[in-house]
Each structure stands twice: as C-alpha cells, then as structure tokens.
C-alpha cells in the first residue's frame, strides 16, 4: 500500500531531529544559530520570518540549497509555517547528503506564539515589482538589490555630457536619491549630447532641467538640485550625504578637489572624462585602490587639456561613457562584479576599441599615500601653477 501523507511525516520524524523554538532561540539571538532555511511560499515569507533565515521556497529547494549551504556538514534548521512541509524538506536535504539537518518543531507559528523575535522583510510594492521586474529577474540584483538601489544616494558632479545619461539611467534604475551639482544653464549647443535636457528648457538651470526629465521618467526618485559649483567650502558636506559620487566635471581643479574630498569622506568616486572621440573611465575606491592622483599626479597645462567646448566632443561618446559611469555606480552600490577600480578604461570611438590599463596605488601619492598630509587646497591655483611649472609656490594647502 502506498504511504499516506501521515505515513510520510511519521517516517520523516524517525530520521530528522526536531528542535523546539525555545531551544534554538538563544543561539539565534546571538547570531550563533544554525543556518535557517525557510521553505514557505513568498507570500508567507513576506509576512515575517525567523531572524537571519534565508528563504528558499520548497519548490526550489533542491536547485538552490547549494547556493546557501556549500558544506554538507553545515548545521541546517528547516522551517515552514507549522513544521510539516519543512520536515519533508529536511528529508530531501538528508537524501541530498546533508548530514546535520533539523526541523523547527511547530514551525514559524509556534516560534511566533512563544514571542520570539520576528523579522518582517522589506519588500517591493506591486508597482515597484512591475517597474523593476527586469532587475529583479537578475540573480545578482534581485529584490534585495533593487531595495538597496532604492535606498541609495548618488551625487553627480555636472548634469552635462556625462551627467545627462548617467543621471537618466540611474533614475530609471531606481536609485532612490540623485543629487545634481551644476550652476550652469541649458544652452542650445548642449543638446547635441546632453540628452536629459530639451529645447524648451534652454536657459533653465541644468539641475532643474534634469529634475524635470527624471520626474517624468521615474517620479519615485528624489532629486536634490544643488545649483552651485562644488568648492572647498561645500564639497565635504555634499559628499558625506551620498553613497557614491559620479565625476562628470569639466575642469581639473574640480576633478582634483573631488578626488581628495572623496578620500576624506571615503566616498567611492566613479570617474570619466571625454574629448572628441575618446573617453576615459575608472573607479577610485578610497584607500582600497588607487586614487585619481595615483593615476594622474598632476594635470597637464591648459593647451594640452582643452575642454570639450574648445576641442569638441562626439555627442554619442557621452552616452557610452556616462553609462559606463552609471554601470559602475550601480555595481559599487550593490557590491557586485568587478568595478574599474585599479583599471583605466580607454574608449576610442574612431577605432571602436576599448583598451584597459593597469592603475596601481602610488606609495608616494601625496593624496592617499601613507605619508600624505591630505588637506583641501586651492585647486585653481595649484592647477594653474602646475601648468606654468611653478609648483612650489602655487596652491599650498590652505
């Protein structure tokens, strides 16, 4: 005769030890408990679960368990609503070779009745699940990653060539707060590449113009407009409010200021610069990789460093490089993949080549080296002094 459900449960109890909530609760509270796998359905899990538990719905248990329990000797505690589904799930894990599997007696219901602490997961709203569904589907992002993006704050220096695509895509991606620092207004000559602005917003502050575009694209994003230039007096306060800073500045004094301020506030700095058909990009992780000054100890003089306004830039190049920055910002926020930290990416649009150079920490770096005496200085004077090769006098830290 085929075994009934009750027979299966009885047979399972023969081989799977059951643990009362009160036995394991003290260990869970100390963070020293077994790995708890909750096998209920998503709707049940969303209502609350044991602290520190991981969620694998019963139907995915066999395919996903190795992702959370690499070692067959790992101590596992399986839980469900009342302790029955989890009991059968525990048998399956035992059959798969796991040697130390227990079942939570009475399941989540008994745990809750005994007034042990419960974690209620933050979840995406149905509208967010729909909007960000393509992110949620990616294992490296998922619902947890999307929630992290929604909680994240990214500061963009410049809402121009690089800032336009970067801000647009970061807003689309659901980065919860976007700060835009730009004192400039939209000019007709910007529209060949600064796609977040529009013809009817010529004359409007770029931050305000970008805010309008972002509101239309994703009203959930909080946009902070900072309609001034970043300088020595405001940079530390600004950076300390954000998780990542995206450098789309148009001049060296600002770039060196940001590089030093990012170190001082320990803010990851996503760098890109562009000219004509060529783009550079890198990521500077404070004290955990090279900084901008390890890469470029000094700026070139003005005749070797024309701005895009002087030398021109292919409009679409901004899209590629701005989106490299947006990509790196998202990766840095989520802690996934390998960022460009320690590498300089060079994109040559004419040859359609991407070249990577190694960038290493300079042990003598005056900004991040062990003997550095890092202080914000007069970067305008310092850059001008370097350009005229009169380093000693110009731009001493102030």
């Amino acid at each position, binding site marked *: 005769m085929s075994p009934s459900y009750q027979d299966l449960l009885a047979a399972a109890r023969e081989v799977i030890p059951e643990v009362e909530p009160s036995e394991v609760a003290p260990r869970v509270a100390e963070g020293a408990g077994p790995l708890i796998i909750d096998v209920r359905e998503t709707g049940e899990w969303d209502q609350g679960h044991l602290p520190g538990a991981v969620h694998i719905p019963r139907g995915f248990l066999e395919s996903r368990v190795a992702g959370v329990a690499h070692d067959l000797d790992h101590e596992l505690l399986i839980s469900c609503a009342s302790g029955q589904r989890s009991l059968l799930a525990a048998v399956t894990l035992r059959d798969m070779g796991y040697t130390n599997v227990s079942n939570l007696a009475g399941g989540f219901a008994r745990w809750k009745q005994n007034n042990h602490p419960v974690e209620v997961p933050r979840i995406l709203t149905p509208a967010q699940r729909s909007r960000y569904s393509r992110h949620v589907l990616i294992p490296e992002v998922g619902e947890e990653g999307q929630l992290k993006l929604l909680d994240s704050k990214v500061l963009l*220096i*410049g*809402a*121009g*060539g*690089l*800032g336009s695509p970067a801000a647009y895509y970061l807003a689309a991606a659901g980065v919860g707060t976007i700060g835009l620092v*730009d004192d*400039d207004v939209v000019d007709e000559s*910007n529209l060949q590449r600064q796609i977040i602005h529009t013809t009817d917003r010529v004359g409007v502050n770029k931050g305000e113009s970008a805010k309008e575009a972002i509101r239309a694209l994703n009203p959930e994003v909080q946009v902070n407009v900072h309609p001034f230039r970043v300088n020595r007096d405001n940079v530390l306060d600004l950076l300390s409010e954000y998780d990542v800073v995206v*450098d*789309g*500045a*148009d*001049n*060296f004094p600002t*770039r060196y200021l940001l590089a030093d301020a990012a170190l001082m506030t320990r803010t990851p700095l996503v760098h*890109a*610069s*562009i*000219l*004509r*058909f*060529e783009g*550079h990009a890198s990521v500077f992780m404070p004290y955990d990789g090279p900084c901008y000054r390890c*890469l*470029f*100890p*000094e*700026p*070139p*003089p003005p*005749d*070797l*460093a*024309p*701005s*895009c*306004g002087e*030398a021109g*830039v292919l409009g679409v190049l901004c899209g590629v490089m701005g989106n490299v920055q947006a990509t790196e910002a998202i990766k840095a926020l989520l802690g996934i993949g390998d960022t460009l930290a320690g590498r300089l990416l*060079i994109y*040559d649009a*004419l*040859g359609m080549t991407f*070249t*990577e*150079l*190694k*960038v*290493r920490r300079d042990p003598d770096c005056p900004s991040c080296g062990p003997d550095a005496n890092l202080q914000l200085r007069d970067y305008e004077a310092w850059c001008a002094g*370097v350009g005229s*090769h009169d380093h000693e006098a110009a731009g001493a830290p102030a």
Partner: protein
Amino acid sequence: MSAVKIPPVLRQAVGGERVVQADGATVGEVLDDLCTRHPAVGAQILTADGTLHKYVNLYVNDEDARLLQWTDTPVGDADTLMILPAMAGGAR
C-alpha cells in the same frame, strides 16, 4: 620599431594620426625618435632640459612605465607605447 599611441591633444602634432611608428630599444629611445620625427610632440611633452613633464603618463602595453623602468624600460617590435595625459572634459 614600436607603435606609439597618440592622445587626441597631440594628434595635430603628428599629422592627425592616432598611432605612429618610432624606433628604439627603450622607452626613452622611442620617445627621442618620435620627437625627432615630430618635433611638435617634443615641444608639448618635454621640459626645456629634455626630460618628460610630470603630467605625461607613459604606458608600455597595459603597464605604467613608472612601475617598470620608466624611460629605460626595454621595448620590442610587438610593444605599444601609449602617451596618456589626463583629460578634463565632462560637462560642457
């Protein structure tokens, strides 16, 4: 003969080319030959006493020449030398 990659700001000095060839067994010799063939490049990257300006980064293939033997780094026919000054452009 090594290939030398020329950054956008120096291309006018080499007749608009993105890559030029230059002779030499070391980075220094290749640069000397480059500046002989294209004196306008030398005017931009060398100081009055003939040394390289500090803002000039040199890469041999993907490695920073400062971490190799700088201008004494040996180079062969298969190596690419890249001259890399910082670029400022971004917003405007």
